[in-house]
């Protein structure tokens, strides 16, 4: 992914002036990889839907005890849960926290990693050495055990809190990529030219170098979101992070705790959130393929 980054077909000067045209061009490039584009569309639907559905579909917290673990029917396409509440509604409404944590973590991580990566690469010397050293150490610490241990000490109960903590451990990967890009781009001609014109470090970093790193940044954004979703769902599943009443992780936790795993009828209760989580992750992974088209468009038809 490192050759010829000085000219990006998808991200050019023109598109920055006219965001709409730029967006359309990006979408069209993404559509070249059909599988990836389908994944992207579905992922977008899930993400946007997660915020819309709670507003639209009310949560009936009162179930009827004679409707426990009912088999799927038109009235309840995904059956009911251990209290007789409809499962499909819970699944549709259950994405908010998960998605929020994913997006927020990715956002914070990107900001931290880009800022410090650029600083590290540009400044060099002591600064570079200490930031890289710190990154290596953070990278080595296993995240799940760390968060399990933290949850024992600190009460984690908001998505924002979790997102910030996750970002604190997720920045090293992107930082490394950003830093190595900056290091190699430092030598390029147009940077020399900008320096000669005395355009200032901030200008050089943000106007000249960043556009060339967009591929790493965007792809890493998606990957960070994926792993943040993974981690947060795991933590909620383990019962360690009481994020909200109903989200996919909580459903699975309750399924385990209430023994739904062992009741054949309760299958939809488990499969519902499972399907949602896996679908979202899978589609995000597929989106990466489309993004690959945007940043590394195929020039040949393949031999």
């Amino acid at each position, binding site marked *: 992914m490192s050759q010829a980054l000085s000219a990006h077909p998808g991200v050019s000067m023109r598109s920055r002036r006219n965001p709409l045209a730029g967006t359309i061009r990006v979408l069209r490039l993404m559509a070249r990889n059909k599988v990836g584009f389908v994944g992207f569309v579905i992922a977008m639907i899930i993400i946007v839907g997660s915020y819309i559905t709670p507003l639209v579909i009310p949560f009936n917290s009162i179930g009827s005890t004679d409707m426990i673990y009912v088999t799927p029917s038109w009235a309840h396409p995904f059956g009911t849960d251990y209290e007789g509440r409809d499962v499909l509604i819970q699944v549709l409404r259950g994405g908010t926290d998960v998605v929020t944590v994913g997006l927020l973590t990715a956002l914070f991580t990107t900001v931290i990693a880009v800022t410090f990566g650029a600083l590290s690469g540009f400044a060099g010397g002591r600064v570079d050495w200490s930031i890289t050293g710190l990154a290596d150490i953070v990278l080595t*610490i296993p*995240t799940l055990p760390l968060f399990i241990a933290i949850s024992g000490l600190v009460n984690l109960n908001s998505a924002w809190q979790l997102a910030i903590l996750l970002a604190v451990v997720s920045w090293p990967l992107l930082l490394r990529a950003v830093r190595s890009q900056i290091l190699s781009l430092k030598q390029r001609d147009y940077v020399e030219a900008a320096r000669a014109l005395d355009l200032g470090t901030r200008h050089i970093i943000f106007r000249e170098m960043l556009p060339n790193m967009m591929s790493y940044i965007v792809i890493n954004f998606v990957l960070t979101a994926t792993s943040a979703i993974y981690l947060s769902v*795991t933590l909620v599943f383990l019962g360690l992070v009481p994020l909200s009443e109903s989200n996919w992780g909580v459903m699975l936790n309750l399924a385990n705790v209430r023994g739904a795993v062992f009741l054949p009828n309760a299958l939809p209760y488990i499969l519902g959130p499972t399907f949602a989580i896996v679908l979202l992750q899978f589609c995000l992974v597929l989106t990466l393929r489309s993004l690959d088209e945007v940043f590394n468009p195929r020039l040949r038809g393949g031999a």
Partner: protein
Amino acid sequence: MSAATIVSEEKTILDQERTSVVGRLARHYLLRRIIKAIVTVWVVITLTFFLIHAMPGSPIDAFISNQMSLYGIDYHTAKSMAASIFAVDLSQPMPLQYLGFMGGLLHGSLGDSLANPGTPVSTELLQYLPWTLFCVSFGLLISFVVGCLLGLIMAYRRETWLDHALSGVGSFLVSIPSFLLATLIIEFLGVQWGILPFTQMRGSLSPGVKASFSPGFVGDLFYHGALPIAVYVLSTIGTWMLTMKSSTIAALEEDYVTVARARGLSDRRIMSAYVGRNAILPVFTQLTISIGFIIGSAAAIEFVLQYQGVGYLLLTSISARDYTTIQGIFLIITVSVIVCNLLADLLYGKLDPRITAIGSGAQE
């Protein structure tokens, strides 16, 4: 200038490089990795110390006030109890406590378990750790070997139905969180289809079986370990498959493969020594990156499968508020990850002859 002069000049240059720079760098790589590992362990220990001992409202303070309020024990007695259980000397100022803590660690003293008073944490760890290590090692071994082989096949049979099918399976497996995999396995193979007697397969050992080297024990070990190992394999194999596939495709396009064909080498030799040995290098790097993640996921997997390993112990300690054990487990897990990383790095250095010469790879 005759050709002989030129050659001897090249020779002298290379010789100089060898003894001065290259020689130093060869030792340098090993040394750097080891030092970095030690530093990381030190940072983690310090961090843990800080969290458990040094913060206000820390577990130690909580323990002391707990003892005082629940059992009416006076402050000094509670404090000395805390000191012995947490393996620190509370009469000393913080920095000395820290050194004492470090010293204790080197002796293997991690304090006593709060949930099981009188049991040293180290003893507990030794009881639970081997199981986790067993499952993770076996799982990783199987998934890496099988995954790489599949990846190789996928690259060689690119664009066939086999490739598409395996790629789909690989991508899919990569997207499923491991605990979900475990849950699904129990759900489908156990509950829905009744193939596996999962209730009996739970736990690390059947009741009454003692640890020894007998076939009975080993059989039982695998019987109970089968599910966790299967989950480790399934949750990681996708990564190896996909990485190996892409690196094999890249290797197949390299010049030296074309030249190898031109030399009339057999396809088998090319596949193993020319393509395979080069393609596996990026996968190995990926292994290094993933090890922490894989060991870390043990907690969730052991929870679902009720397998008494270190991850399981961690979770029970959380609900029991057994801070010393939590601390011990976290340390041991992190140290395991660091050690595994180091081993993997060293092994990579052996596999790739370019590493010792260049010194440290692109990123250092």
